[in-house]
């Protein structure tokens, strides 16, 4: 039994389109590091309070000028709050949860990662505009989920 010629063309077209999509995604992943946050690191949520980094989460500037922000998400706030970081500087975010699963989404940017107890999420981003940003929890975490909002203040630049 034969396949109709138009349907054959359609299938080649559809297959070609899918290959094209995947090529674009694959090439940008390799050349521009367009990748989702996929860090693998575990941490004990029961002893988070005594943890050297997450016991008192802070913004730290290393000797090489690299900025690291450690964040604890918990019902129903982010710590530290507000977070202050410089503009046009790579900022590494390291995020974990003290209780249930939370989300960490910087509204108006592509920063979007899960905060999962027992794991550390990590990604690096550069703010190119100074100003105030909101961080929203985007995973249901209890009855005050919608009120779990933090702030990031990006300072510096030529304003």
């Amino acid at each position, binding site marked *: 039994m034969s*396949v109709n010629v138009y349907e054959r063309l*359609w299938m080649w077209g559809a297959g070609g389109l899918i290959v094209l999509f995947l090529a674009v995604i694959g090439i940008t992943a390799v050349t521009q590091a367009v990748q989702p946050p996929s860090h693998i690191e*575990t941490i004990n949520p029961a002893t988070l309070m005594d943890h050297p980094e997450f016991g008192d989460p802070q913004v730290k500037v290393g000797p090489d000028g690299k900025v690291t922000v450690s964040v604890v998400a918990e019902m129903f706030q982010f710590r530290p709050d507000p977070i202050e970081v410089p503009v046009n500087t790579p900022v590494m975010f390291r995020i974990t949860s003290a209780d249930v*699963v939370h989300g960490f989404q910087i509204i108006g940017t592509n920063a979007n990662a899960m905060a999962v107890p027992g794991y550390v999420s990590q990604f690096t981003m550069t703010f190119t505009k100074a100003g105030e940003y909101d961080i929203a929890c985007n995973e249901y975490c209890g*009855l005050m989920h919608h009120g779990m909002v933090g702030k990031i203040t990006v300072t510096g630049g030529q304003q």
Partner: protein
Amino acid sequence: MTSTGVIAGTPQARLAVSHIGVAIAAFGVAAIMGMLQGLSIADVEFPMRSESLYYMFVTAHGVLMALVFTTFFIMGLGYAICYAQLQRIVGMKTAWLGFWMAVVGTVAAAYTILTGQSTVLYTFYPPMQAHPLFYIGATLLVIGSWLWGGVLIASYVSWKKDHPGQPVPMAMHGMLATIIVWYLATSGLAWEVLFMLIPWSMGWVETIDPVIARTLFWWFGHPLVYFWLMPAYVLWYTVMPRIAGGRLFSDKLARMVFILFVVLSTPVGFHHQFADPGISANWKFVHTITTFAILFPSFVTAFTVIASLEIAGRLKGAKGLFNWIGTLPWKDPFFLAMALAMLSFTFGGFGGAINAAYGMNSMVHNTAWIMGHFHVTLGTTSALTFMGATYWLLPRLLGRELKLVGLARIQPWLWFIGMGIFSTSFHIAGLRGLPRRVYSGALAGEQGDAWAALTSAGAIGGVVLFLSSLCFVSVVIATWTSGRKVEAPAFEFAIPLEPVTTMGLWDRLGMWTIVGIVMIILAYAYPLATLIMTPRYGSPPFQPF
């Protein structure tokens, strides 16, 4: 009598229609909740509006629509198609046992939700913990559906013995593929619920690993989407062209499409976990490839179904490039619902490709966009198809004429328009950063103002959807209780242009099941094993509701 496709009045028809009845009851209850959720997000005050009620309704709406309405409907549809095409249902007692297990499970889970003890949403991510009966109820629902699958497979095996070397008729081929996908999908869920969630919720183990639980959930959660979609495709391929007066354009490719779903629908779950820690970017990319590959069978479906309908128009004498579209039976509520559902799926498909795109996903992950997306896919492509199918099934199962036909003709339009408003608003709001599942859209001062117009439009869409639901449920109740008794119409399926008459590559269901299992092993064995071997720290339970 069944060789003519007339089955009303038989015990088999009663079995099928009982499932449909439970499905529609769940739908009706969930529809009211859906409208109230829409109002709440838009900050419209109504009596008893509260955080606890909102999140309880999100949980109940999700469970009742996504798990109960769909599963019962698909079970009922499966029995009807099986009896009409194979003239047998082997294991009627097992079938009823499955029905009652699923009913008891649903009631148990619903009880713990509506008493406020399981406000964990339908994704029930640990370490948020529900009442043990929530997990046990869900398990009973799934075991009930497993018995259904077993009964249909037994019926198929019995039919094969009587028809050696013959391929099973197309609609049943699609239902069997659906069952295979369901078994592959629920194996992940069974692992999560039986070995992790139930022991943990009973207090037998103290902690649970959230990432492993999420991984097993999405092993189930994405093929669940195809479990909803495949029965809709069965109806589009085999019933819609029949009602329109066309032919199935390609029997062979239709069979291929369902087999591709068996192979590709499960090894894709990481595209729901792009933002998760604990899974490497490389494995997320592997799942991106399979996710894009699964667009292919839907592209083929678009061609074959539309070509099948074009034949209908040509047979009625339509000559031009597009004027055959006007000759289609737009006044038939069944046809109208299916056609609008198909149209919605083109929008759903665009959105889905964006969700699956590895990098772009960061813009939309867990925002209101996702909610907008699955309301055009599950909420319209599958749900509107099932509503249309109800108008086709009820006369054939009950032997009663459809009542309130005027309402049945308006209902699909209302759904399509209401969902257009609802879904578009939330797609845009999501792109602007509105998180999904929030009691109130007015989060933090300025942001809330930016979203206000969109959430208000969403609420209006929700009200229109509720009116559509009201029309649907009214037609069902009126037909069921007081539809005129008539000689039941037969179950009839589209005749293919070139029927598949001998067992071909795409008819070897057993072989393809094995390929499906191998795909799951390839996609999950290494990342899961790596995770299990990493030193990990579990989480104790939390009940913040």
